[in-house]
């Protein structure tokens, strides 16, 4: 206590005693009275009794309780669990994790200086720390206070609640100190790091840790949209599964049913595997921290920037006044900014809103038109029947383009929101890639289409001639010659001449009629070619889709021949089978669906056998005709598959993602991996550190992001190929071909799940789009209104008073 206050209190007491002397004498009398009647002795007895009770009962109970709580903590291993800052009681108990493993995440780009500093970051649990930054030349208590109060983030451009939430803490923590002279002064749970320019990896010690994992990580650059993630980045939109789940049973094809059943069986096996595990391990806080740590890594760069920028608030730091030339430069820059801002404001106030309004009205008009067209394309006569887009490739192409045009404004609005928040928020990066991928693909498509279209239009006559030639040669003449070949005992096969002539004449007659139609078409062919060429200004995919549709239209006769011959062949085969049963004295019981014995009459048997023989000998003739048309049909299907592949490449090739993968693989994270580094050399080769405690073995691990593998990028193409393969190369299809049953074409909806994987299942309505766009509009307007008139002028005014504030803000 200060001597003056002691003196003052002394004077007060002596003054009081002299003024109230009678009170003092009364007190003295009271004391003597109490002593005479044994009050003191009784009080002493009571005190002794209470002390015995305290030491005998309360202290042991408290000790036991403390020990038990410690045991519970250790048992659940949840010390410092989800919210370490809420477990203040646990902190006071100082229970150490019994394995004593200290895990330190350390950024690789921390400057390797040998100045003392404070290590700042996140404390995920007691011995699990994540280092964000090292603030040089600061005091740990001061830093702790400022971090708790949040002063270091007060002037940040966006609210700090975002990263607090994503990183799972309410404030950053002081994790330790670096390069201190006397490590014993530090808190025992603090990390003591020692680094100098010669050391590759800092030496980390902690009094409470028995072993240390140093995990070095590279900070992803959020400005460059780099980030890491545990799961591969999704290039396709994820909401397709919901749509598939709705699909009813009857729409499901045979392969899908098979797939579903296989999945069921596998799921049961997985359930059984779960029973195999005897002990269920409760994951510790350290195990559960991984998703949080991934977020912390993603935020690390921006947080470090902000901290280093604001470190000047922590206390006085060396400053330097500006030189004359610097002042001249600053004033010139201010003048330039002023003029610049004035011009910009004029533009923003008068010209920009007009442009924006016109553009938005144009967009909305376009959108309404698109909506009407889409309604036509998607119109189904009754639910479940085919719409126009399911039949025609052109209609589908138009539909995809329209859907994309409808989706772009929405995507753009979502992407714009990215600019109004921290750059480290990674949720919109796949959207960004999708948006620019589809933009780029459309641009590419148009460029290729321009080249193709101008070529076709310039050489329309020649192209028309070629097309006409091809049509005549392949759809008419080749068919005619093959049929006439089949009519005249092909390849030495002794076919039934009469039947072959009959069938051949029938087909030839239809072909003659069809060829007349095709010849009628030929004068208008240049116009059609010109139209196809013109359509390619809308993208090279348009003429391809048109050609695909024309191919289907111009080969209708082959399709119908195939159908007819397959029908005949199938009937004949069925009759043969039933007659064969008759021949054996059996018959097919339809009611029980089995083969029964049957007593036939002699005439029945005779007629049946004769018919069987006749039909059997006629079979090869029918077979060759059937095969001829089936092969033609297969060729057309293959041709259309080529067109479809081209279309899907033009519409959905992951071009942007591929380019990104080459340019900057860290923008396409495909997971994480760790690399164990050799530490022995590192420790032994450093002669300046003889006092490393040999008891803390350290392992150095390098934490890396895996770039997305190419297989994952093309996974949807693989899926589509798998589907086509399963549909067309299955034994079922072969059986259909052999027995003459109709081979069902693959469902277009299945085939084009790829095409739609870049588009949302439900497109936004016109009203929603209007709202989104107008909200965006009002936001930009507000921002332009709020824009400070001249930010550098403020600094200019402040400078005279407070030089430090300018220098460090």
């Amino acid at each position: 206590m200060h001597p003056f206050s002691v003196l003052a209190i002394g004077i007060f007491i002596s003054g009081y005693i002299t003024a109230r002397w009678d009170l003092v004498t009364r007190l003295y009398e009271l004391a003597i009275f109490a002593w005479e009647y044994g009050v003191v002795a009784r009080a002493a007895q009571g005190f002794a009794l209470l002390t015995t009770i305290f030491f005998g009962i309360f202290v042991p109970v408290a000790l036991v309780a403390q020990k038990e709580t410690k045991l519970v903590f250790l048992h659940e291993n949840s010390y410092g669990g989800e919210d370490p800052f809420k477990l203040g009681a646990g902190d006071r108990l100082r229970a150490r994790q019994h394995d004593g493993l200290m895990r330190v995440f350390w950024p690789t780009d921390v400057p390797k200086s040998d100045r003392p500093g404070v290590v700042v970051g996140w404390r995920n649990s007691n011995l699990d720390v994540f280092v964000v930054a090292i603030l040089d030349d600061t005091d740990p208590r001061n830093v702790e206070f400022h971090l708790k109060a949040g002063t270091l983030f007060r002037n940040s451009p966006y609210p700090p609640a975002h990263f607090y939430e994503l990183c799972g803490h309410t404030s950053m923590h002081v994790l330790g100190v670096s390069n201190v002279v006397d490590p014993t002064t530090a808190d025992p749970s603090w990390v003591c790091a020692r680094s100098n320019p010669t050391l590759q990896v800092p030496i980390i010690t902690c009094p409470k840790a028995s072993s240390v994992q140093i995990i070095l990580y590279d900070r992803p650059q959020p400005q460059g949209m780099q980030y890491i993630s545990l799961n591969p980045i999704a290039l396709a939109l994820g909401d397709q599964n919901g749509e598939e789940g709705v699909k009813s049973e009857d729409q499901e094809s045979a392969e899908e049913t098979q797939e579903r059943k296989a999945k069921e069986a596998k799921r049961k096996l997985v359930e059984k595997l779960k029973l195999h595990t005897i002990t269920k391990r409760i994951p510790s806080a350290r195990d559960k921290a991984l998703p949080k740590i991934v977020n912390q890594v993603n935020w690390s760069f921006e947080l470090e920037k902000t901290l280093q920028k604001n470190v000047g608030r922590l206390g006085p730091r060396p400053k330097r006044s500006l030189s004359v030339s610097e002042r001249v430069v600053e004033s010139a820059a201010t003048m330039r900014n002023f003029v610049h801002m004035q011009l910009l404001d004029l533009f923003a106030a008068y010209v920009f809103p007009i442009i924006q309004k016109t553009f938005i009205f144009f967009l909305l008009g376009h959108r309404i038109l698109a909506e009407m067209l889409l309604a036509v394309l998607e119109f189904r006569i009754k639910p479940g029947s085919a719409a126009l887009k399911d039949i025609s490739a052109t209609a589908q192409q138009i539909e995809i383009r329209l859907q994309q045009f409808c989706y772009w404004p929405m995507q753009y609005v979502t992407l714009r929101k990215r600019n109004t928040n921290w750059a480290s928020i990674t949720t919109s990066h796949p959207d960004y890639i999708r948006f620019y991928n589809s933009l780029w693909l459309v641009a590419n498509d148009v460029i290729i289409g321009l080249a193709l279209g101008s070529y076709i239009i310039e050489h329309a006559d020649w192209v028309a001639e070629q097309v006409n030639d091809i049509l005549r040669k392949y759809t008419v003449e080749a068919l005619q010659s093959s049929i006439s070949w089949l009519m005249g005992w092909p390849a030495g096969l002794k076919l039934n001449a009469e039947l072959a002539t009959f069938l051949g004449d029938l087909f030839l007659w239809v072909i003659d009629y069809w060829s007349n139609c095709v010849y009628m078409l030929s004068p208008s062919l240049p116009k059609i070619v010109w139209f196809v060429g013109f359509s390619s200004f809308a993208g090279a995919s348009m003429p391809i889709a048109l050609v695909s549709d024309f191919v289907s239209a111009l080969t209708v006769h082959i399709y119908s021949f195939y159908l007819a011959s397959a029908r005949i062949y199938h009937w004949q085969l069925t009759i043969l089978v039933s007659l064969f049963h008759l021949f054996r004295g059996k018959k097919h019981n339809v009611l029980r669906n089995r083969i029964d014995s049957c007593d036939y009459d002699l005439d029945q048997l005779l007629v049946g056998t004769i018919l069987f023989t006749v039909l059997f000998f006629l079979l090869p003739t029918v077979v060759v005709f059937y095969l001829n048309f089936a092969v033609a049909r297969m060729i057309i299907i293959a041709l259309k598959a080529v067109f479809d592949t081209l279309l899907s490449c033009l519409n959905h090739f992951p071009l942007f993602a591929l380019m990104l993968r080459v340019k900057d693989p860290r923008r396409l994270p495909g997971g994480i991996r760790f690399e164990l580094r050799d530490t022995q050399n590192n420790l032994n080769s450093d002669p300046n550190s003889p006092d490393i405690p040999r008891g803390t073995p350290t392992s150095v691990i390098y934490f890396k992001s895996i770039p997305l593998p190419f297989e994952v990028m093309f996974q949807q193409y693989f899926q589509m190929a798998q589907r086509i393969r399963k549909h067309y190369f299955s034994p079922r299809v072969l059986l259909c071909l052999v027995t003459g049953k109709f081979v069902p074409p693959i469902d277009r909806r299945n085939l084009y799940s790829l095409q739609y994987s870049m588009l949302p299942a439900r497109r936004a309505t016109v009203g929603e789009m209007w709202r989104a766009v107008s909200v965006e509009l009002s936001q930009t307007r507000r921002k332009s209104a709020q824009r400070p008139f001249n930010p550098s002028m403020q600094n200019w005014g402040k400078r005279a008073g407070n030089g430090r504030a300018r220098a460090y803000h």
Partner: protein
Amino acid sequence: MLTTLPHLRIRRPSPTTAEFTVTTLPPPTLSLRILRTILIVFRLLLLLSICTVLSSRWLQSPFAQPLDTYPLWPRTWASTDTLWYIAGCLHRSRLGIALGGLAARIPLPLLVPGAATLCYGIALRVHSSESLLVLRGLGVQTSESPRTYLASAATRFIPTEKIQDIFVNEAFRGFEVRYYLVVVVEGEEDVVVVFPGLLPRRHIVEKVWREARECLYEKAPRGGIE
């Protein structure tokens, strides 16, 4: 000679981190080093001769320009002319002429796939190694060395939270029974086989299993069931 049976190497800088590598790479002796150098030289020579054959085939085609325009040693050392000059020398040499004759005799549909197959063969690795990295508090990571020198190692990281169990399983493979280490991942249909390509013998698998469990999981607090 260049490879051995799969054997185990353990790196364990601290008790909570361990890397188990099963590799067919024998310990580095002098003879092994000499053999490997010879192999590398042989591969390079093979690559060079394949390139020579292909380029001479190209020169024989009507589209190519003749290499005779580079008869002299170019003035500057580091330029593309040097490369052309060397290529020209190579083609004019006796070996080059012989290879050119070879290229002329083999039909093109056979030559190109053959050259591609040989190039793939050159890029193949001699040794393979597969590893399991166990990090307490983080998880386990399996990695396999790629088949060729051109690809990078394939890794798969499984966080501790997702690890349901690690155990040794047995399976028939041909006419033998193999024991293999399996990581069961929660919520996944397929188990992850550790050392899938090499499938080391049982004593190695058992040792890795014991140490990996010890390394991955901390001991139970009261020494009861682990």
